[in-house]
């Protein structure tokens, strides 16, 4: 008995010593920056190991720094599931005094909406969601970016590369097939691969594309396997819309050029990475922080693009890219900003052999997913103008096949 007590005493003393030795650094002791009691809370689906969430986290840090927020004015919750846990996380952030809450994943939306209804004094912003423009709540907002323009530009780099390989005699023009690893058969992905394809086709008219779905946003093994399947099917270049490094790594092993998303993959695939398109969330996050601080209204549904620097291309890998790629991208980018070029120009593609003259898209959320809005206007499919989240869901326009 005695022995146990003396041991316990020793342990307690040890604890005391360690506590005494520890540097008394509080993670949040500098109180600089305007609106000292302002607080912003972030809800992330995964941690920084997911490229999707990393992109948001980096933007959050940059925006907080640009707005002069101190460490204790920013609260981050990572690994928040798309479940009741998301509502709880939002409510806890409100309890901690957050004036603004941002959530990054599509499945968070209904829980954020629930919190927004319960806490009308707090602003809630949700990326990739679809419901804010019809819910009409003053404190619930959606945002996305016109990433389809970025994908189109990345597609140009892909098409130029195909042309170069054709010229080098690696394959003939009618063998110029690309592969695309998509997460879900969902408008966001369909819009993404179609714009990538149209970008490639704008410079390489014989390009075709095959799409494989993984039915998961993040699965390294599945994405790698999908890329390998596409390579076996004769694809000469691969791109993807899924959040792991599976596909770029498969391409590096097989020596197949790859166009990535969200992050630059040059460091992991120096011989095959071409370029990546990404959404830069920093301008949006800065805007919502500043607007909340000043009491200015936040747009209910916001979709910035190339002009606002919300859509970016990462560094072009000059070791892989074809000559003249940067110039071609810059030219198209200027035309997008000037409004003279449109990704989904109906004269540039056909669906089931016919040109698109009218299309009803499911823009307003309802249980039955009813197509409700005419989106072909002035000779092009007007993506993201009726709602920030993409609604181009015409699966497999001519030239694209699904596996």
């Amino acid at each position, binding site marked *: 008995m005695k022995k146990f007590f003396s041991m316990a005493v020793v342990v307690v003393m040890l604890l005391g010593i360690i506590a005494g030795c520890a540097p008394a650094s509080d*993670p949040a002791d500098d109180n600089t920056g305007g609106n000292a009691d302002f607080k912003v809370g972030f809800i992330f689906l995964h941690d920084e190991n997911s490229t999707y969430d990393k992109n948001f986290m980096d933007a959050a840090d940059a925006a907080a720094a640009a707005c002069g927020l101190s460490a204790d004015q920013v609260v981050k919750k990572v690994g928040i599931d798309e479940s009741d846990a998301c509502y709880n996380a939002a409510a806890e952030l409100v*309890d901690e005094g957050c004036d603004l809450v941002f959530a990054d994943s599509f499945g968070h939306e209904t829980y954020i909406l629930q919190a927004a209804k319960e806490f009308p004094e707090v602003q809630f912003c949700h990326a990739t969601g679809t419901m804010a423009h019809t819910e009409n709540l003053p404190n619930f907002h959606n945002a996305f970016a016109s990433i389809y323009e970025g994908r189109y530009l990345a597609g140009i780099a892909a098409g130029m590369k195909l042309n170069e390989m054709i010229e080098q005699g690696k394959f003939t023009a009618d063998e110029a097939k690309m592969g695309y690893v998509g997460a879900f058969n969902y408008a966001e992905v369909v819009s993404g691969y179609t714009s990538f394809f149209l970008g490639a086709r704008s410079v390489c008219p014989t390009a075709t594309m095959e799409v494989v779905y993984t039915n998961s*946003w993040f699965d390294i093994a599945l994405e790698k396997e999908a890329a390998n399947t596409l390579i076996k099917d004769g694809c000469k270049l691969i791109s993807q819309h899924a959040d792991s490094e599976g596909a770029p790594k498969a391409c590096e092993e097989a020596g197949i050029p790859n166009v990535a998303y969200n992050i630059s993959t040059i460091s992991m695939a120096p011989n095959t990475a071409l370029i990546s398109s990404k959404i830069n969330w920093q301008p949006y996050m800065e805007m919502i922080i500043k607007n909340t601080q000043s009491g200015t209204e936040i747009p209910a549904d916001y979709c910035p693009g190339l002009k606002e620097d919300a859509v970016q291309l990462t560094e072009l890998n000059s070791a892989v890219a074809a000559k003249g790629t940067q110039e071609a991208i810059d030219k198209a980018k200027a035309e997008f900003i000037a409004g003279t070029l449109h990704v989904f120009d109906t004269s540039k593609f056909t669906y089931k052999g016919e040109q698109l003259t009218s299309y009803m898209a499911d823009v307003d959320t309802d249980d039955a997913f009813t197509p409700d809005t005419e989106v072909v206007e002035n000779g092009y499919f007007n993506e993201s103008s009726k709602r920030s989240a993409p609604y181009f869901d015409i699966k497999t326009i001519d030239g694209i096949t699904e596996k």
Partner: protein
Amino acid sequence: MSGKKHSAPPVYITKRDGLIWYKSWLIRIVAVLLALVLCSVIIIALTGFNPLQVYSAMVRGSFGTSRKLWTMLQNLAMLLCISLAVTPAFKMRFWNIGAEGQVLVGALATAACMFYLGDSLPQPLMIAIMLVSALAAGVVWAFIPAYFKAKWNTNETLFTLMMNYVAIQLVSFFIALWVPSGSGVMGVINQNSRSGWLPSVFGQRYFINIVVVAIVTAAMFIYLKYSKQGYEISVVGESENTARYIGIDVKKVILRTMAISGAVCGLAGFLLVSGTNHTVTTNTAGGMGFTAIMVSWLGKFNAAIMILTSFIIVFLQRGAGEIATKFNLNQSVADILTGIILFFIIGCEFFVNYKINLRHKEGK
């Protein structure tokens, strides 16, 4: 060295006959304190924060506000419910590691009722139908491997494990069927009508969940300890031959026990959808079906002790999340600390069950 005779090792281990209760608890408390010391060293080495501040943040994760307290109780109730479900099977030495899948099909059945019935029925009838469907789904999912085990003596560990993956794929399939946009996200079902949602009681959304699990806990405790069927489960678990010898129908006990196991899992699925998430995803069970195995073993298959063991797990999980948020740490740091504490808690059972003796050297 080589010339010497083999000498007895300086320490040897003997099984304890049963330690008096306060001594065994003392060992456990010392183990936790040692774990905290080791964690402190790691916290200082990796992050430079004051460990006492980290520990106090950990406590605040569960007790910081009344909302956090309720969330902790809710998480505790769900984990405990699933742990209670696997316990009778484990006591029978039937390795049911399919709780994850049994919970998921219960959740899926509940969500299916909410999806197809909408707000067409009065609320009490609606909830009754959902509950019955969830229990039935859980029973079916548990009964299949039990039947194969009883009939052909198949390996229940592999069978129940594989049934988990079938359940996950079933959920994916139905989400794809119900959500034609292809997003793979069901979202909250009946968000406006709240049809099929368990109501708040005294302003608490989780009140019913917690009360239901409290009742199940008491019932399971009595069932296993005082009922004839509970006794039959223990006998089958100790020795099937003894059970047969004294006239217990082993096959019947296996089937009946697994049906109960599945029904309680189905109930957990019902509570997770109707009383908590109001949706279904492949992650609805969230790994709790596996954590429950640890809770059940640590609790020595005793429903009352399992309240404590599931509390420890939930407390550590909530604390880990709080640390990650408060100190802007990677979630992995918090997970490392949780792992160390659990390692010490589980490891100390060795010292509760065995005595380490020092051999006194002779002739010196």
